[in-house]
């Protein structure tokens, strides 16, 4: 979990507007979450569902592997990343977040998720 805290701190240092960061398995079980409440389980399942649909869609398109899905609402934004083959990173942000910068930052941080994954 300390490795997760480091990753979250790193993300927040460079990106404004991050509300919540959730790390879970690709089958929808929460591993680490900056929000500690009753929604952890359903949020992880939702993130895994988005990943599952995203992977299927990417396969259907035939343009390479799934990387991330972005869901925008009027007052917020959720970005779901596939981390390796077995994990999901869900970043909940304000509507104004710079998704391009977030993508780059997460891309650079991907290796840092290995110890978080190993801590499962």
């Amino acid at each position, binding site marked *: 979990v300390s490795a997760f805290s480091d990753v979250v701190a790193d993300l927040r240092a460079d990106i404004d507007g991050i509300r919540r960061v959730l790390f879970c*398995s*690709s*089958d*929808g*079980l929460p591993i680490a979450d900056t929000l500690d409440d009753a929604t952890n*389980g*359903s949020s*992880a*399942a*939702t993130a*895994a*569902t988005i*990943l*599952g*649909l995203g*992977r*299927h869609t990417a396969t259907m398109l035939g343009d390479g592997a799934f990387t991330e899905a972005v869901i925008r609402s009027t007052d917020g934004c959720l970005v779901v990343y596939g981390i390796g*083959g*077995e994990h999901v990173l869900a970043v909940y942000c304000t509507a104004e977040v710079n998704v391009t910068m977030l993508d780059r930052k997460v891309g650079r941080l991907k290796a840092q998720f290995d110890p978080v994954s190993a801590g*499962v």
Partner: protein
Amino acid sequence: MSTTLKVVVTGPFGAGKTTFINAVSDTPVVNTETGVSDDTAALKTNTTVALDYGSFTLDGDGQHDGVELLFFGTPGQARFEFMWQILSEGTHGYVLLLDASRPESIAEATAILGAFREKRPDLTVVVGAGRTESGSAGRAQLTELASTLDVPAAQVIAIDARDPNSCRSLLISLLVLVFTALDSDGTGPLEHPGTIAELDVIAAEVEAEVGADAAAASEGRVPVGAGVS
């Protein structure tokens, strides 16, 4: 011309939902499976996280319309309950699969049934019970399951989800019930073949194709037309 019906295939983890849709679909199936990361991996190594999708067409014969069934398979774990709600929108009936050899599967199936009934209390269900005992013990199992689930006994059917004939027999049973429900209220939300007699013609053709193997594989299923008045 054909009638299109949406059928949800639900049930607990490891009940055979993905296997069922793979077995019965006559079009390429959409699966969203991923590896299992908790101790349920001992039971099964992969699990559905979004949905399965497939379809099956009963051809019309010129006089009678065909029926196209669209299958939407749900994830089984309770943490995906929101997908049950999403996928059940607009459905005409559902198949509830369970593993009759595991008490926890029956308990989870009961909870899933409760969730569906809460949202759609009048929605037609057929229960497919896998891994039942054979012979009289199996029949007693189905009777007990019907009581536990509070579902009419004729709607609890032994099934082998790996066997397309077994799956299709169960679907015919569901279709009969769905069309019966549409006929009985007279206000069905869709254009359908209209009469159970027409459906029976289609069902008889399928039965003929399925042959004797299905009769053995689907021991305990409701005969086509049973309960239809």
